């Protein structure tokens, strides 16, 4: 069976090499450019900003520590960062299935429309969307955030999540269907 690894990005690898040699400027550059996507990923998985901020920083602290130990990754920096982000989330929340205080019971079910249509979905506001997303399983949330939020390729998403490409294809469909169902059950606040 083949696992096709992503093309190594020369600029990324160069940064990593410089960082490993102890260049603080390189580590700073990594922090400045990658904090945003890491934060965005984590934020959608958490209930609040403060936790998200702290956890995102944790990811970069881990990078610095591995560099100091001489064990920094040599390739695929972005993939490494997202993988660490996932672990940081698991560590923080334990292995809870869903990292959220809001539970499905809090939703007031709508009488009809379990499968909301496109127009309905378009009108959902951000906060509702986030809460709905957090009702999904961890895998489902991650695949949607990586594929739609971060717009990563199938292959890179598979690498980060430790899954086969075909599994990710299935997962993204299931995740979308699940999210759509949750939206259908929610009391939607529209923009």
């Amino acid at each position, binding site marked *: 069976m*083949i696992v096709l690894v992503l093309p190594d*990005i020369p600029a990324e690898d160069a940064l990593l090499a410089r960082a490993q040699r*102890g260049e603080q400027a390189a580590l700073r550059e990594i922090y400045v450019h990658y904090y945003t996507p890491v934060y965005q990923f984590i934020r959608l998985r958490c209930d609040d900003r403060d936790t998200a901020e702290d956890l995102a920083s944790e990811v970069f602290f881990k990078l610095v520590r591995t560099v100091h130990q001489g064990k920094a990754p040599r390739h695929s920096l972005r993939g490494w960062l997202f993988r660490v982000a996932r672990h940081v989330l698991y560590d923080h929340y334990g292995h809870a299935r869903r990292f959220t205080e809001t539970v499905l019971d809090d939703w007031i079910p709508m009488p009809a429309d379990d499968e909301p249509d496109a127009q309905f*979905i378009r009108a959902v506001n*951000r906060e509702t969307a986030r809460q709905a997303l957090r009702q999904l399983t961890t895998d489902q949330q991650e695949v949607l955030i990586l594929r739609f939020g*971060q717009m990563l390729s199938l292959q890179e998403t598979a690498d980060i999540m430790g899954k086969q490409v075909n599994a990710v*294809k299935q997962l993204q469909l299931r995740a979308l269907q699940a*999210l759509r169902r949750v939206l259908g059950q929610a009391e939607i606040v529209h923009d």
Partner: protein
Amino acid sequence: MIESDLLNVLSDSIDRMADGATIGDCLQRHPQFAAALEPLLETGQLVRRAQPSTEEAEQARDRQMPRFEQLLAEAPPVRRPLPLVGLVQWAALLVLVFGLGGALAAEQSLPGDTLYGLKRITENARVSLLPDTAEMFTQRRFDEARQLVNLRREAELALTGEIDELSDMALVMQGLTIRTADTPERAALTPGMRVEIVAQSTVLGELRAQTIRILDVPERLEQPAALITFTPSPTASGTPEPTRQPTRAAAFTPEATAEARAVEATPAVCAATLPDGWIAYTVQSGETLSDLAARTGSSTQALADANCLADSRRIIAGQMLYLPRQPASRPTLTATPQPARLAATPTTATRPDSRGGEQPAQNRRGTPESEGGERGGR
């Protein structure tokens, strides 16, 4: 079966949306799936909209910066690598000068042998002394692989080099044939690419690839070398620049979106809107752009322009292309005259003893050369 089509269409659409296509574009490409696809893509779009803005992320980043700086400051003194290199170099010198018996014996060893580890250590030591020898050792891996194949021994090995040839089931590097599995990811490989392959040699004398890592792509494939921009340029949509990776689409259909081309590479000129009546078509195995152009009464230039294909004009089986009309059926290939014969066989003339060879007497009407003859050809 039907669901696997939806899986692929969905994934394809997600990729396209990542490259800047709208949901409408995706629905247009797959009209038969549009009803199922639309709410799914809208849901996905919703996730994207639900993301915190770049501003919020950057504020968080700036707030957290002091903590990061503090950790940086706690760095242990940088281990000067030199003394360590010195030790290795001494060891290498000893090995070279005194020709330690073990090291010599290891020279001939192959992956899987007890002494193979020593061979690689010795090589690394020599490379640290004389970096130019690295290339020689890379070649050695191929020699070792050839030996393993001849000996029909099982071992795991790694090879780095350029793909010389590629077929559905295998690739060739330095004259070595390495079998590959037929997975969708395989389509990303092209001849000329520099790859690192971890393979298994088998008792049948075969090499089977287990992982393939792409190291470099040839320049003639219009693909930006650096895929991440490090100077975040303000974009209207607020997309975080560092995370965009247009590779997989760019390799074959480099649709030029403003964001995807932020780094370099000449933008492809292409039709802003698709001319009326053009249809989406899935390229079949063996088809080329000129072939499709001929069969649709168009020109390769027109097809390339409409589909934003770069100079390479490469198309692959399974790829979606817009064509002015459904292409006329393929003319029978000269290599396989049988289909023509079947189509043209008069009811009486079938010879039971035909051994599959050409039977000229029967090919009255259906000679393969008459392309335009019965099928509406050009």
